[in-house]
């Protein structure tokens, strides 16, 4: 009895209750919408309708069903987001290292990191397109730009969080600069690094979808805007909505899993 109660009140179950609650709210609104609106599926369909559309064989394009369209485009978008994410991660880490090694670099680069964050991504897209002459490359670069800011600021904060006593100890042992970084600074900054990655992963996906909307050539964003303009079934939009929400959350969780594997001694926080 007690065990069952414990299970029902465990953290995972409570999250499940909340998700069920949210689904209930969605369904209530959807029921209201279904009665009051002329085309309820444009505003808010029932969740079962969306799920049914995943398995239906209705043709949305000339050759493909709704699900096939969504999956093939999701592959493209997520691939670009992943490549951009990895590039941004590497560049962001290197920049944080440089900022920590040379005070001048930090002074020059840090304010501009803030400003890069504030440039609307759709705005830079055409410029990067003009430079790279390839829409896919520019989509990857934009995902990289968005990844790189949270990674580098968090890693830098991680480097700075190292206690002075530990640094003093390293110096008193006449440690080389390389050793100070390898043995102290880099391990100490790992939790911060992963915090950065957790912020960056959903952002890379968002950026990738958003830049898709700007030009054709395939990708979730393209399909999303076409679907909203009623050029194809509206369920394409709803499937993309659910898929990207799930992928966004999964990407966040994935970073947590990787963190646990790489540094199991640390307890993962919220």
């Amino acid at each position: 009895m007690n065990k069952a109660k414990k299970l029902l009140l465990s953290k995972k179950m409570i999250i499940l209750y909340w998700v069920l609650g949210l689904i209930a709210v969605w369904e209530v609104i959807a029921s209201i919408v279904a009665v009051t609106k002329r085309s309820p599926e444009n505003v808010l369909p029932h969740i079962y309708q969306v799920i049914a559309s995943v398995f239906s064989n209705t043709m949305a394009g000339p050759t493909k069903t709704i699900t096939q369209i969504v999956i093939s485009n999701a592959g493209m978008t997520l691939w670009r987001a992943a490549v951009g994410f990895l590039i941004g991660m590497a560049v962001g880490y290197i920049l944080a290292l440089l900022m920590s090694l040379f005070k001048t670099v930090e002074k020059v680069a840090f304010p501009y990191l803030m400003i890069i964050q504030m440039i609307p991504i759709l705005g830079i897209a055409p410029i990067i397109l003009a430079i790279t002459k390839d829409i896919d490359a520019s989509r990857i670069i934009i995902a990289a730009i968005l990844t790189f800011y949270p990674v580098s600021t968090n890693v830098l904060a991680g480097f700075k969080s190292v206690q002075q006593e530990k640094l003093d100890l390293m110096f008193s042992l006449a440690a080389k600069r390389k050793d100070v970084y390898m043995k102290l600074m880099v391990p100490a900054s790992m939790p911060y690094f992963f915090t950065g990655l957790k912020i960056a992963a959903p952002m890379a996906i968002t950026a990738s979808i958003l830049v898709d909307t700007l030009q054709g050539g395939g990708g979730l964003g393209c399909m999303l805007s076409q679907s909203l303009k009623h050029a194809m079934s509206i369920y394409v939009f709803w499937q993309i909505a659910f898929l990207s929400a799930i992928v966004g959350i999964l990407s966040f969780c994935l970073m947590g899993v990787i963190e646990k594997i790489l540094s199991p001694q640390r307890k993962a926080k919220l």
Partner: protein
Amino acid sequence: MKTKKINKNMVTNILYPVIFGAIILILCQTQIMHKILGTDVFTLPLPSRIIEIISENIPKIMVNVKATLIVSVGGLIIGSLLGYLLAIIATVFPKGGAGGLSVAAAFNAIPIVVIAPIFNNLTKGISSDASFRSMIAKTLVVTVFCMASMSINAYRGLNELPPFSVDLLKSYAAGNFTIFKKLRLPNSIPYIFIALRVTVPGCIISGVVCEYFAEYVIGVGRQIRENIVTAQYATAWAYITVACIMGIIMYIILLIAENVLLKGRKS
């Protein structure tokens, strides 16, 4: 001697970025940058041209700035208050609340591109005035974004207390409300600013992104999109600059507020 050193430090703090910015601007203006990047004046307009456009169109730009600011700041305020309220509720009911916050954190991971059209459609019935209802939709999206970030950070601030401080207050026979007022609330204030450092620039960006999908054509973000679609890159850049300036000004206001409110707290 010491004050002099601090002054030198502050001067380089400002001077280095300014020099760097000036070099970039000069490279753009003299079109050396265009050669390096292999682009032309059409896609990457000269800085002087951007400034010219901004100064020529100030009244029109201000209309759009105002629309974006109402959405962003409105969403920021409502979202932050709601987020803090959520954090308080989660603190009062720790069992169910913490799980709820995990769900709120998940909301942060949902791409804004998807939330924006949903809210747009949902609010269609609210008013017959397209400008009003699209403003409500945009504000709601910004609210969701700010709420998630604020609730997580405020919850940490309300609960990551100095060790034994709750026990100490309890040994003084302090009630839960007194503990909240004297301990949790002051403890959470730095965490509020951590959240705001993310949400203040974020609210402008998410406001701008929402406008791409909004029904009513107004706002800095919409102007960027319209001008890019019609290949008016110089005008688009003018609006991009304006959006950056808005974000920077909001951030500076936040830093000043933080300095004033957290005076003497920082180590």
